[in-house]
């Protein structure tokens, strides 16, 4: 393990030198997160520099192959990098559906040409991707989707509508599930297409949510021309890609249940807000509830660690993604409920952008257990696929 220790030292030194001071401060608002893309306006020069430097090393996607611009790190090295980043409480240089969802699917299913074209720009944060999955009549029952792509010789013509497309209005490209065969069972006629959101025929309507924000959109396609080379994998085999990608999405959303680097523990937040009595958080009921939450939060983090370690040792149970999605999102909802209780009436402030953030985060968190396969869908998957309970 001498090499690993050497890698740690080098990484530590590099991060010390290259991570700007302001990128080590806690994330206070959405603007502190960098999403990249053609139209991205950096919140600061440091935010731009941090992305540029990390992307240069491929460390926005540490384990992706170096030939496409990834970090090319082994799992152990990536873990060291993660630990060192956490040590200095550095922010993630790039939030990206390209990295968290699309990239792993492209690496597995795309042609060599497609990989060379799309993966480097994902790593550098140049193209921001959105996901075209759910439709007005295909939510939990995703495979019943109706958006069609008709074969027109050298291109497909896409028509239909998608809903809950996260950040469609800010995205450059979409990875989209379309129906290419209406005469077979619902899982078999689906294909996986990539296209530019600036294509003629794409219209985007942001949906105002209970939080007052509009991170989701309804996206309508009217005869959108998509070159055939943008089909990923085989025609009508898109459901396999969709499922593979969903497991990554679940793991990402499940990760919301974990404390982020640079955020203080709920117990610390509460004792500052509420005060102490005899060295203990003054509100006994909230103290018990926070303790219950933090035990689960730590147990959940350890379970992610165990799942990864077991997979590495070849002892994996395999079906962990549903568990992670289910538990992580439920934990994030509890965290937000507790933060609302800790804040009391102050936490309800509406209307001012700065002050309303907690109430908005709380309302937003309610969607975590709906999107990416609802908690009930995850429970179904666990019951049937893992526990083998009958239909």
């Amino acid at each position, binding site marked *: 393990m001498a090499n690993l220790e050497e890698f740690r030292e080098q990484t530590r030194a590099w991060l010390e030198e290259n991570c700007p001071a302001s990128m080590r401060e806690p994330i206070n608002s959405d603007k502190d997160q960098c999403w990249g893309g053609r139209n991205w306006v950096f919140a600061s020069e440091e935010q731009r520099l941090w992305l540029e430097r990390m992307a240069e090393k491929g460390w926005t996607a540490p384990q992706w192959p170096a030939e496409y611009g990834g970090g090319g790190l082994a799992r152990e090295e990536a873990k060291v990098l993660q630990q060192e980043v956490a040590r200095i409480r550095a922010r993630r240089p790039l939030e990206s559906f390209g990295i968290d969802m699309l990239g792993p699917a492209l690496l597995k299913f795309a042609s060599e040409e497609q990989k060379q074209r799309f993966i480097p720009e994902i790593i550098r944060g140049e193209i921001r991707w959105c996901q075209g999955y759910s439709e007005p009549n295909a939510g939990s029952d995703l495979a019943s989707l109706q958006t069609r792509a008709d074969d027109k010789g050298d291109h497909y013509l896409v028509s239909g509508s998608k809903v809950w497309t996260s950040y469609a209005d800010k995205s450059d490209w979409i990875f989209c599930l379309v129906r290419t065969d209406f005469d077979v069972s619902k899982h078999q006629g689906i294909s996986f297409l990539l296209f530019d959101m600036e294509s003629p025929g794409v219209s985007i309507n942001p949906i105002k949510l209970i939080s007052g924000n509009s991170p989701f959109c309804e996206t309508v396609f009217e005869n959108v021309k998509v070159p055939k080379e943008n089909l990923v994998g085989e025609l009508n085999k898109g459901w396999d890609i969709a499922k593979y990608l969903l497991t990554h999405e679940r793991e990402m959303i499940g990760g919301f249940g974990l404390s982020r680097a640079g955020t203080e523990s709920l117990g610390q937040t509460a004792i500052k807000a509420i005060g102490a009595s005899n060295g*203990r958080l003054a509100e006994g009921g909230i103290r018990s509830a926070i303790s219950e939450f933090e035990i689960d939060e730590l147990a959940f983090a350890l379970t992610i660690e165990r799942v990864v370690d077991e997979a590495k040792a070849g002892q994996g149970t395999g079906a962990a993604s549903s*568990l992670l999605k289910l538990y992580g999102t439920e934990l994030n909802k509890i965290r937000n409920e507790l933060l609302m209780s800790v804040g009391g009436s102050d936490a309800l402030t509406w209307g001012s952008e700065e002050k309303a953030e907690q109430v908005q985060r709380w309302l937003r968190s309610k969607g975590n257990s709906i999107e990416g396969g609802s908690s009930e869908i995850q429970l179904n998957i666990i019951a049937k696929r893992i*526990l083998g309970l009958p239909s």
Partner: protein
Amino acid sequence: MALVLNEEQQMLRDSAKTFIQESSPVSALREQRDRGDEWSPELWAGMAEMGWTGIAIPEEFGGLEFGYVGAGLVIEECGRTLAASPLLSSSFVAASLIADLGSSEQKETLLPAIAGGEVIITLALGETGRFDPDTIATTAVAAGDKFVIDGSKSHVLDGGIANRFIVAARSKGDNNGLSLFLVDRDAKGVHIETSLNADNRLVANLRFESVSVSADALLGEVGLAQEAVQRALDIGAALSAAELLGVAQEAFERTLEYLKERKQFGVLVGSFQALQHRAAQLFCELELCKSVVLKALQAIDQDTADRSLLASMAKAKVAKTAKLSVNEAVQMFGGIGMTDEFDIGFFMKRSAAASQEYGDYYYHSDRFAHLNGY
């Protein structure tokens, strides 16, 4: 350290499973209870032969020095079949106190005897109904080269069969620190009253009336036992969590099997979504429990700074989950789950008792908060 078992540990778990399933299935507990026995000296001899009684004891004192992760694997398998033995109280907790505090002479005489299963020693600490290791009123007064102990202890685990007790007492003038004394069960002034618990295990309430012990009965120094007691209680909590994990998993698996067999309304009851979702939820909780138990035991083996925090996390999480597991089991078994003829009730009783041992959910979740600064 990776959160996985190494090859040696996997082999230990497999051999423990085989041994305990053969020599002490749940039916053995039923037979013991019906006969009026609370434990089985034959099983104990078998455990000693397997080396379990010395699993956490250093090699130089006749143990296997396999560590607490190993001890956890063994006790978890005992939890699965509800096998009763003084492994936890004597071989794991009391042995750790002697190893931490004992003089060379005490270690040389007592540890090999514990490792061989020949002597059973148990910690007599708590004096209240609920677990509360800080409320100790028992006193030890120095008188020449002797100490005189007065006070009482309640719910002493395996107190009915232990040869000796490690008695926690306070002495004046020692900043009210804790001292530990080895006291023979037959010593003059020791009164033992045993009491049978719902899980068919015998605990003892002890009374010490002017019990005179010589200076060499002192374990460690006067008033300075606190740290070792803390460690022993962390060991107790984490291993108790491991045992409960076995209880909870077995109850869950038996329930799952039942859901796949039992028919009502012409279909298997396991096809009902109301039950499927509860089973799936419980599965998730049990997965979290596996992680916390392994992590806490690794922390004890490595003596990390967050050992106490992780031990409390483990016991709190598993105690809460075990309660859910046995409650769901009885509910899903339905009427048959309420009958004595059926084994699942044994799991409910053992879960309740093991949850109290070395502190329950409420004790440990509060301690977790305290250790985290709130």
